[in-house]
């Protein structure tokens, strides 16, 4: 995990930040020479967690590779809002694959670079949770199994947002989506479904797997930077709130992401060759309500008659994560 020693130059405040660090310790985004790989002018929603995450991730990758990154993008929000014909906000070589094959197309691009003897050029595949955990799952596993030299980044906003907030296998229990209504026996998405793709990635024993969140952008940059120094298949799963789909305030995106982390619902960890090598220990643990109440997709659990039973079940998931991943 990214941890840095800093010196306080201003007394009486808790102000810390890039300007107090040595240049080499500052974030990529604070650097004037950052590539702005995902340039301004794209059509993402106000407060979009994915746009934030992608900008940090790709710029970090460019910084780590001397500006030699090619990106393959699955169909989804990122692909759609970043390339509104006839414009593109990408400053790097970029190809939109199809919905389910970003990992395979990226494997092809990486093979082409090997064939051309261009070891300096690196390949990133990116997709949302739909394109990664569902329809892209087969190609993803194939890429991992072959250990193709690709960094796959999944931007997880926990539903098919681009097409109108439909449920994916990354949708958490009790969340309301257009296809998991907030009524009936188990209001919202069903408990006992879903899959943990970072852990599945680990099961392929690939060189590097990490989860990250837009709540900790320095950590995200650091993980991408270290991933680019590794050869072979790497997977980074980034939690990115979607104000529209989650029903949260656009200004709250980073706060919502932080609540997910500090409640234990989204554990931050790293793994190499199938074994966990680092985890973020919760600094200020919060009960899951702090996270859930910020989002209208969970509104049906609150109100005059709060659904305390469901909230307790969600808390149990958080408790289990904390135990399983050693977050306390």
């Amino acid at each position, binding site marked *: 995990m990214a941890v840095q020693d800093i010196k306080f130059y201003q007394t009486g405040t808790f102000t810390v930040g890039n300007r107090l660090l040595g240049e080499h310790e500052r974030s990529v985004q604070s650097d004037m020479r950052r590539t702005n790989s995902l340039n301004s002018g794209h059509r993402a929603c106000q407060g979009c967690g994915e746009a934030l995450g992608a900008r940090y991730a790709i710029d970090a990758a460019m910084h780590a590779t001397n500006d030699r990154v090619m990106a393959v993008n699955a169909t989804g929000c990122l692909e759609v809002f970043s390339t509104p014909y006839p414009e593109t906000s990408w400053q790097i070589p970029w*190809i939109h694959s199809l919905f389910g094959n970003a990992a395979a197309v990226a494997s*092809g691009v990486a093979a082409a670079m090997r064939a051309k003897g261009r070891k300096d050029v690196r390949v990133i595949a990116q997709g949302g949770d739909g394109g990664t955990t569902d329809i892209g799952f087969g190609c993803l596993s194939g890429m991992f199994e072959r250990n193709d030299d690709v960094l796959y980044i999944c931007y997880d906003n926990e539903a098919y947002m681009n097409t109108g907030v439909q449920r994916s296998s990354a949708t958490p229990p009790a969340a309301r989506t257009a296809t998991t209504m907030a009524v009936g026996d188990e209001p919202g998405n069903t408990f006992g479904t879903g899959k943990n793709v970072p852990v599945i990635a680990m099961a392929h024993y690939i060189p590097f797997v990490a989860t990250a969140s837009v709540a900790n952008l320095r950590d995200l940059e650091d993980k991408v930077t270290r991933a680019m120094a590794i050869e072979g298949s790497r997977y980074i799963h980034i939690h990115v709130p979607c104000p529209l789909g989650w029903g949260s305030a656009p200004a709250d995106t980073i706060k919502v992401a932080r609540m997910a982390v500090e409640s234990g619902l989204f554990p931050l960890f790293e793994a190499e060759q199938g074994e966990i090598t680092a985890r973020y220990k919760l600094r200020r643990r919060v009960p899951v309500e702090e996270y859930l109440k910020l989002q209208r997709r969970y509104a049906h659990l609150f109100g005059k008659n709060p659904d305390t039973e469901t909230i307790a079940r969600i808390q149990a998931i958080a408790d289990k994560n904390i135990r399983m991943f050693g977050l306390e």
Partner: protein
Amino acid sequence: MLKQIEGSQAIAEAVALCRPQVICAYPITPQTHIVEGLGEMVKSGELEGCEFINVESEFAALSVAIGSSAAGVRSYTATASQGILYMAEAVYNASGLGLPIVMTIGNRAIGAPINIWNDHSDSMALRDAGWIQLYAETNQEAADLHIQAFRLAEELSVPVMVCVDGFILTHAYERVDIPTQADVDAYLPPFEPVQVLDVAQPVSMGAMVGPEAFFEVRYLQHHKQERALERIPALAKEFKERFGRDSGGLVRSYRCEDAETIVVALGSVNGTLKEAVDEMRERGEKVGSVAIVSFRPFPLDAVRDVLKGAKRVVVLEKCLAVGVGGIVSDDVRKALSGIALAGHTVIAGLGGRAITRTSLVEMLERATKDELKLLEFLDLRWDVIDRELAREKSARRAGPTAENILRDVGPVAARIG
């Protein structure tokens, strides 16, 4: 150099001579020997500078080729039957993006019922996806067409499917002249992409295109295939000059000059058809045949030219448009627009049923006497059909059709034809 080799091996050697840099392979009968042959050549070093990738599905196979082609390297894959359907989305993607991938189709029937034998239903299912489609008559032509395909694909920036009858060609040992590397290099220069992912000159590829531009993009694909109508014969002519034989082109006619009855067909059946034509000619009948080599783009003018003088045209098809009849027939009919002659469709060979010279001669006899129906099914067993229909009438739960018929037909291994 003349060799007596398996069709798949001939194709593998021809593809290797084209210096592909990425080959992705997912196994499916009957193309497996092709990619295995190529894999061996990469391993032995005979094929240098090539990345050979074992992928996890056909969808992945073409996706990998899309990635590598977009990144500027010559890319190749092969599939058949269910595989081409599994990669269908990527097939349209490749042609829409204008990537010059060459893909072998080892023509095989599509299930259900599952069947590993030859017919044209697979390549026909994707005939309108924007790929150029070339059909080989012999293993020599199969090898040669791959060389012409890479040249054609890269010139026009269009992907090309080379269709080779599964088992009948892929698994047959016959004499093939394998060209030299020098000759292939002279015919096929290094790949110069029209568009490429390049860190020195970044571009975005694969944007969403709305009503304001989609129509023009799609039309330009059509336009490219129309240009191919000129390029295909030109490249075949150049091929003949360098390699010394006729291979490829748009159509190839046999004894059609004064023919009153002409049979049109795609692929290897043209060999047997020529034998049947010769036999009819010996009986004094004016019969000829035409092999359509380029099915997409469909050579309307060339087909019209060769058929216009005939009294009757029989289109012999290894595919069936369920619910209406012929597929190739439709395009032939388009070519004959305004010309009055008797046109017939004969569906044959589905699921690998052998098309014999005897049956073709019988069919031609009836054709010359104008006894053919508009739509015929060659060597279909009507007794089996009738029995199954009777079964269906007798009980609601008559059972699965395929299994019923198999039980009716009895053990196959004991029979020859």
